[in-house]
């Protein structure tokens, strides 16, 4: 019994140390205007725009710092949460939107669920600042209000369907995006005491999410939640990662309204996730309505949000063992403190992935690392006796980039991918655009301008 406690303490310490190392890496990703860097994603990659992205990365970064502050009482973490909040304030447009809020589609504005994720972070920050009697709290809360009422509720809310649209020009209902909005609105209600948003928007949105859930007790798909619904047509795709992001909203909705159907939906969603969890603790990328699944790529850093959902489910009394997924997450940690984004990007196109990882797997991305950071930050406590974080000056790893065997190299100031005859991709940290060199240029010896 005692042995188990020691093991638990050790793994908690390992995760706590990982949080601090990841925090040190995040610092290297800051440039003028905020956290930058390339983005890889299931939908598309964006290796070229590397300037600040005021998108969902701020959710995990601000909430991770707030967790560090709450758990340790150390003001430097609150200062960093505050600094990230100021990035959002300075990047807010007159419309209430945030600049460069489209993550994989940056630079652009009006990104979903990204702007709602920023609102959630701002509102939680405002809450803490108000407790500390920091006068900035009102400005922070006002920024979230301007976005919520100027964009989310004014443009994305469909009064007829009583759901949120995916984008201004796209009426698709996307449950995970609505869930992020729900969390932001509930944070608003908690901060201000205004409950009208709960009846008017939160309830109908959660009802629509419950309606989008598969109810088939004898099917392995039971509990899955549709990725998107356009009119009567469902996408037929169930993404465990996105479903995990819905669970906290459902449980918060249950706490706010007392409607048990939300708690039931959340726990059934978690049961679906656990049913498809693989022995190594990872999750497939997507499960289809025909029961097939596509593993590629499996999120590593993003597993932080899955673990967070597991924590919520455990609080409700569900028997969930997070350990395999914790180990999966920790295996992604890199020497410089960053965390791998995924495993298996190379197999995305249906080809057998190479033994050597794809560069997109290795590439740590702020908008994925924030999810690991937010989860791991919860493991840090004031009583921890952790060594000082010291990152090596550079990290090198073998990888495949566009079919070529390359070397991934990252330092505190540069991230580059090198082939035999020179670099193929290069980003000087802090600059808004990366450089890419393609095969024709290599053959002709023309430098990438």
């Amino acid at each position, binding site marked *: 019994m005692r042995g188990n406690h020691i093991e638990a303490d050790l793994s908690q310490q390992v995760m706590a140390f990982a949080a601090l190392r990841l925090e040190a890496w995040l610092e290297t990703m800051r440039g003028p205007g905020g956290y930058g860097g390339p983005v890889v994603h299931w939908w598309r990659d964006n290796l070229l725009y590397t*300037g600040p992205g005021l998108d969902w990365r701020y959710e995990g970064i601000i909430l991770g710092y707030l967790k560090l502050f709450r758990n340790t009482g150390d003001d430097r973490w609150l200062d960093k949460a505050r600094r990230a909040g100021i990035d959002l304030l300075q990047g807010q447009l007159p419309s209430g939107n945030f600049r460069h809020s489209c993550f994989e589609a940056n630079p*652009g504005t009006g990104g979903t669920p990204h702007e709602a994720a920023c609102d959630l972070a701002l509102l939680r920050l405002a809450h803490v600042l108000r407790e500390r009697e920091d006068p900035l709290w009102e400005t922070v809360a006002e920024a979230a209000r301007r976005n919520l009422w100027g964009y989310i509720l004014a*443009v994305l809310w469909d009064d007829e369907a009583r759901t949120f649209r995916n984008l201004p*020009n796209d009426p698709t209902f996307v449950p995970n995006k609505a869930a992020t909005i729900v969390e932001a609105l509930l944070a608003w209600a908690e901060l201000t005491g205004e409950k009208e948003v709960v009846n008017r928007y939160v309830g109908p949105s959660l009802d629509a999410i419950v309606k989008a859930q598969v109810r088939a007790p004898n099917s392995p798909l039971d509990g899955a939640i549709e990725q998107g619904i356009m009119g009567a047509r469902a996408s037929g795709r169930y993404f465990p990662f996105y479903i995990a992001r819905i669970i906290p909203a459902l449980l918060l909705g249950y706490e706010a309204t007392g409607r048990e159907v939300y708690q039931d939906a959340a726990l059934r969603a978690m049961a679906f996730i656990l049913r498809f969890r693989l022995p190594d603790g990872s999750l497939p990328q997507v499960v289809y309505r*025909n029961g097939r699944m596509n593993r590629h790529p499996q999120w590593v850093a993003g597993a932080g949000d899955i673990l967070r959902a597991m924590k919520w489910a455990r609080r409700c009394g569900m028997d969930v063992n997070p350990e395999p997924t914790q180990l999966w997450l920790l295996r992604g940690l890199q020497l410089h403190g960053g965390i791998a984004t995924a495993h298996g990007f190379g197999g995305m196109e249906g080809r057998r992935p190479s033994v050597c990882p794809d560069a997109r797997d290795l590439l740590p991305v702020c908008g994925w690392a924030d999810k690991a950071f937010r989860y791991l930050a919860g493991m840090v406590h004031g009583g921890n006796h952790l060594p000082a974080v010291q990152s090596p000056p550079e990290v090198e790893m073998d990888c495949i980039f566009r079919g070529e065997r390359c070397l991934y190299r990252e330092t505190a100031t540069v991230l580059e991918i090198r082939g035999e005859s020179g670099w193929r991709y290069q980003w000087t940290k802090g600059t808004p*655009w990366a450089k890419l060199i*393609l095969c024709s240029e290599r053959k002709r010896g023309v430098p990438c301008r």
Partner: protein
Amino acid sequence: MKAAPAPLPPGILSDLLHQTAFNLCAALAGSWDGPVVLRSGDPFYAAELALRLETFLQTERSTRRPMLIWADPCVADLPEIADLLDDFPLGSGVLLLLVRRRRGSDGPDASGVAQDLSCAPRIVRTETGQRALWPKEVLDWLAARGFREEVGYGIGGSDYRFWSRLAYLAERLGQEDRADRFRARAQAALLVWGKRVPAAILTLILTVRRNG
């Protein structure tokens, strides 16, 4: 009050193609050491490219080797561009963003992918009603002013269109798993170079002034 909808891309091209082209254009301009000038008669192209150029134009740059980004060139642009290029010294650049338009009907096909991309010369209008310049016309015109092609990229070549169509068909048939794999293949084929550039829907060509 509802906000005005965002401007839609002109023509039939998908958002992914445009985004890739605009970002590549900005990345190339961002690594150019001289000042960057943007010319496009098309308001959508002008707005999207300006948004990206704003991210680095504040930084101090040498004034010796300017670069012109000329997006969706049309005949009406020629006098102004000719005047502008007169002041461009050796080593200056012109980055062209060329759009291939369909010869047939104006509407998109159901998959959102351009169908007939034959480049047989004919009069084609830009979104603002101007006669668009053909790639060869622009390159010849620039060559006459000493600008030589250095690098070319295509966005949305024939492989991209092939896999996109398959993805669309698989989706229509309710085979979402196949659709996703085909879509991933399409994305992997999005950016092309070398001989495949001329068949692409959008083309970026960097020319540099080598002689007066």
